[in-house]
């Protein structure tokens, strides 16, 4: 037998924990994945390697990874190596990935898309996970749609297939999945590293927000032909367009590879504010040709861009989700083509935010301390007046507000106030709400 069968028991090497194989769930290039349960009834995933010449290397790799704790809750990290009483070879266990996690591609193809807040949450979560991995000096090596799964409702992320993770210095394992691979990996001038992970992450984020590949535009499409004498092998094309001479579809100085007329990227790109598009421009211009931590976009940069993007989201009067673009005052709505009506904005030390339902004021807005988790206030629709908003104090200190034309008031913890032009004092920090 090559693989355990349903009903078999495998044993964790370190703890002798017995796992019963319940079902076979997937077969991939490296082996077969099963669902198993331990004696406590907990689901676990068991990956059993196919016999191959790299088996010893794979064993060492899993042994190495199980000696680390998982860097971030999003990783379905290897727990332990498992053996079978009679089958040669080995497998390993990892946390069972719930069915709510699916491939991002599956989500992107659906007619009804997750809302922008969820897309942004997915982006933030991914960046936090990779930041945690990279700050340990480890690189993932194989970012692609099969490995980074998302919950399109909650915005959670699950990163699977962690068996290729290693330190930058260990020059082993795979190079990656081609369309996510950094140009320097494709031309073979470099090995997988944190820097190449950053490129793959940017490709993934481009898909998440723009629905396409950052390098696949008219120039690449023109090379796809089955005419006699014109054709080049896929390998030649790939090496050229993704490796040797890559060109971003929105390169500011070369428009020859813009998205094809029927590409969804055309529509999505226009929706986002200029500052956010600028991050992708950096990732795929300097970040494309000069592989270094300085030239590529790091997780910290992505994270603050994503939080800022979240701060600029609101609803057009037609009902469409739109972003306030402070660089283009009269930007038209992607749905109704109207220019937006006035929206309340809030000027805080970290920048300018649009007040819309779901907006959360965090410590970072006031103190610029990168604490995005602690909520100080949150915006909700007005319970009685359609179109109006209220701002709830979710902190534990009172706010002192000075609404225009009214006297000074206090908003106690838990209380709500109607959003209107005013000054708000958060202890010593003064902010302003304006109507634009």
């Amino acid at each position: 037998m090559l693989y355990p069968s349903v009903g078999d028991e495998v044993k964790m090497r370190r703890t002798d924990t017995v796992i019963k194989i319940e079902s076979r769930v997937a077969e991939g290039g490296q082996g077969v994945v099963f669902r198993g349960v331990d004696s406590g009834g907990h689901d676990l995933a068991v990956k059993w390697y196919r016999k191959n010449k790299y088996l010893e290397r794979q064993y060492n790799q899993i042994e190495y990874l199980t000696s680390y704790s998982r860097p971030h809750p999003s990783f379905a990290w290897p727990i332990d190596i498992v053996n079978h009483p009679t089958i040669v070879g080995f497998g390993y266990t990892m946390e069972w990935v719930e069915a709510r996690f699916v491939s991002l591609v599956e989500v992107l193809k659906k007619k009804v898309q997750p809302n922008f807040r969820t897309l942004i949450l997915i982006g933030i979560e991914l960046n936090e996970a990779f930041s945690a991995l990279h700050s340990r000096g480890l690189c993932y090596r194989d970012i692609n749609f099969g490995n980074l799964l998302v919950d399109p409702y909650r915005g959670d992320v699950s990163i699977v297939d962690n068996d290729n993770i290693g330190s930058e210095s260990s020059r082993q394992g795979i190079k990656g999945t081609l369309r996510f691979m950094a140009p320097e990996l494709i031309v073979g001038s470099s090995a997988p590293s944190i820097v190449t992970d950053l490129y793959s992450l940017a490709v993934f984020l481009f898909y998440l927000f723009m629905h396409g590949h950052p390098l696949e535009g008219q120039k690449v499409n023109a090379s796809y032909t089955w005419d006699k004498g014109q054709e080049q092998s896929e390998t030649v094309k790939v090496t050229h367009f993704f490796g040797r001479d890559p060109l971003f579809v929105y390169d500011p100085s070369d428009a020859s590879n813009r998205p094809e007329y029927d590409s969804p990227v055309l529509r999505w790109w226009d929706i986002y504010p200029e500052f956010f598009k600028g991050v992708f421009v950096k990732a795929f211009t300097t970040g494309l040709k000069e592989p270094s931590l300085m030239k590529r976009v790091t997780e910290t940069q992505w994270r603050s861009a994503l939080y800022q993007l979240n701060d600029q989201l609101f609803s057009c009067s037609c009902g469409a989700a739109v972003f306030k673009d402070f660089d283009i005052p009269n930007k038209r709505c992607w749905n109704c083509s109207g220019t937006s009506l006035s929206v309340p904005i809030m000027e805080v030390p970290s920048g300018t935010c649009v007040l819309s339902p779901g907006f959360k004021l965090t410590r970072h807005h006031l103190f610029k301390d990168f604490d995005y988790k602690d909520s100080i206030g949150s915006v909700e629709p007005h319970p009685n007046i359609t179109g109006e908003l209220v701002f709830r104090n979710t902190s534990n200190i009172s706010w002192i507000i000075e609404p225009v034309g009214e006297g000074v008031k206090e908003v106690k913890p838990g209380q709500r106030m109607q959003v209107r032009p005013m000054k708000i004092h958060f202890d010593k920090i003064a902010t302003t709400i304006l109507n634009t």
Partner: protein
Amino acid sequence: MNDLNSLMPGGGISRRSLHFFILADCSGSMKVDGRIQSLNYAIASIAPTLINWEKEQEQAQIFVRAIAFADQAWWHIESPQPIELLNWVPLTHVEKGLTSMGAAIRMVADAISPEKFEPRSLRPVILLITDGKPTDVEEFEIGLRELFSLPAGKAAIRLAVAIGQGANVSYLNRFINDPDIPVLIAENVDQIAVKLTAATLAISKMSSIGSDRKQVTEQIILPAVNSFIQADDDTIV
């Protein structure tokens, strides 16, 4: 953060078509042991694998066409069917039917000629399933010449499944025309679905741009070809 219930733009990503041609033997011998039923079953059972694969990747949208062959070759599915809509009408054997494999290959060659084949599509996949050898040897030779004279034919992923001992592997190897990729042999009807699944998995891996066909073969096709030999690996010699 999910309280803004506003309208979102519709989904979708741009993909390239992947044309998948099934060339299925319906000669008289396909009646033996219920081979033809087993083949119909196998095709129905690989469809979900292909649908899943399509769902999970961003590059390809799969379209299926099928050619059946016996005394002659004919389109079983002529207009490309998106895999998720595939409605496989079971094939039946032709009583005392011959094996016009050459004619089938010529038909597929015609369909992927530059005039007819979609320019932006990925390299096509041609899967040949037979339990015999071509009875139209001259046509077979012409068919191969035509196929390999075409850019899409040369680039195509060509796989073959041989059913039973009667299948002549040397013809199939000439069709595959790649020493690294062996013919998948289904020793008996039970194995048809197994081999077709291995072929499907190999196809999905090979279709990814930049994939290494040799590596895919080592990982997927060779274990499937050698599964009997490998099963005895525990034996102490």
